[in-house]
């Protein structure tokens, strides 16, 4: 699905920079590695500079983490569950938001190319990434339900023979559970992909001026989408660990 219209090239599939064996190295994967690498380096130096009397940067991180943790604890209504799932939920937000913000930097896209292929490209414009995150999130959600209730009790949410209505509701629950894979992955993909296309189009029509407010908007979208993914995961975990009635 490539469209050649006035120089704007839009494809859903990620750009492939090359292959290692048969493994395709895509621009989004390279970008993802760089984002993870930057976060790892930052985390390392952050941990070393941690002080009892914090500086401004540390206060920001502490406040964010403290606030997020309190919120997770409040939603899950359980200290143990909060401790177990907080790193996972927080990292969903950090990774997606960081990847989205990195994707707005000037050298992502067609500005910096490798054999005429973009070297960096917004990570979440690749369905492989968003689908991978969705699969991981759904697996963790199901794991949370089973760990909290046991296989039989958790399974009884989806397959039960109490009544015809109960059975039907169970099946619907099961389908909606699987539909999360689609909604999770396409929500994020759609938002970020559309944002990228929007900016490309704006750049084409009125470079220098039009993209600025759009970029500001995309910064917000990038952070909000990270938060949405993380919050939905949190809520679904809460639903999964709640006793069936």
């Amino acid at each position, binding site marked *: 699905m490539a469209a050649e219209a006035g120089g704007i090239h839009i494809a859903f599939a990620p750009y492939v920079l090359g292959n290692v064996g048969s493994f395709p190295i895509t621009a989004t994967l390279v970008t993802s590695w760089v984002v*993870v690498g930057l976060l790892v380096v930052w*985390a390392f130096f952050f*941990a070393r500079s941690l002080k009892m009397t914090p500086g401004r940067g540390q206060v920001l991180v502490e406040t964010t*983490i403290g606030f997020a943790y309190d919120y997770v604890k409040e939603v899950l209504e359980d200290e143990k569950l909060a401790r177990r799932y907080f790193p996972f939920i927080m*990292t*969903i937000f950090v990774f997606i938001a960081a990847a989205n913000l990195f994707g707005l930097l000037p050298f992502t896209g067609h500005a910096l190319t490798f054999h005429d292929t973009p070297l960096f490209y917004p990570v979440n414009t*690749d369905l492989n990434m968003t689908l*991978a995150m969705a699969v991981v999130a759904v697996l963790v959600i199901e794991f949370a339900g089973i760990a909290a209730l046991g296989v039989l009790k958790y399974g009884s949410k989806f397959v039960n023979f109490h009544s015809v209505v109960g059975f039907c509701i169970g099946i619907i629950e099961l389908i909606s559970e699987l539909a999360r894979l689609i909604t999770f992955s396409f929500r994020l993909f759609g938002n970020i992909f559309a944002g990228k296309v929007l900016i490309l189009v704006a750049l084409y029509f009125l470079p220098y001026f039009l993209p600025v407010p759009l970029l500001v908007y995309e910064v917000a979208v990038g952070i909000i989408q990270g938060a949405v993914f993380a919050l939905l995961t949190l809520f679904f975990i809460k639903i999964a660990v709640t006793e069936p009635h």
Partner: protein
Amino acid sequence: MGDLVQVFGIDWRLMVAQAVNFAVLVAVLGYFVYGPVMRLLAERAKKIAEGIADAAAAKEEREAAASERSGIVSEARHQAETIIARAQDEGKNERMTIVKQAQDRAAQIVRDADLAAAEGKRKALKDSEAEVARAAVLAAEKILRNS
């Protein structure tokens, strides 16, 4: 479905690679950021609680010290008043004693003086009686001699 996979360039190996990236990030951020920050927050909360408890204890101690001090001061004032009152009493008593002794002594002296005067008077009278008698004898002798 095959079309969908091709259009979006879905490749399970890429998905695994992205999932691994995410897993690495969960582990690294958990180890270097969330863990230390949560521990730090807990530690700081503990320190603040301790600080507040310490401040409350110090305040209590200070109040106790203040009330003890005011107790001591009022006790001291009370004792001082007692001492002054007793001293005044004692002073008054002593003065009265001294005055009384002085009066007694004065009375004694007056009495002694009276006695001495009376004795002198009596002696003088007696002496003068003898003198009169002798003068009478002498006068009588003179008369007799002349006659």
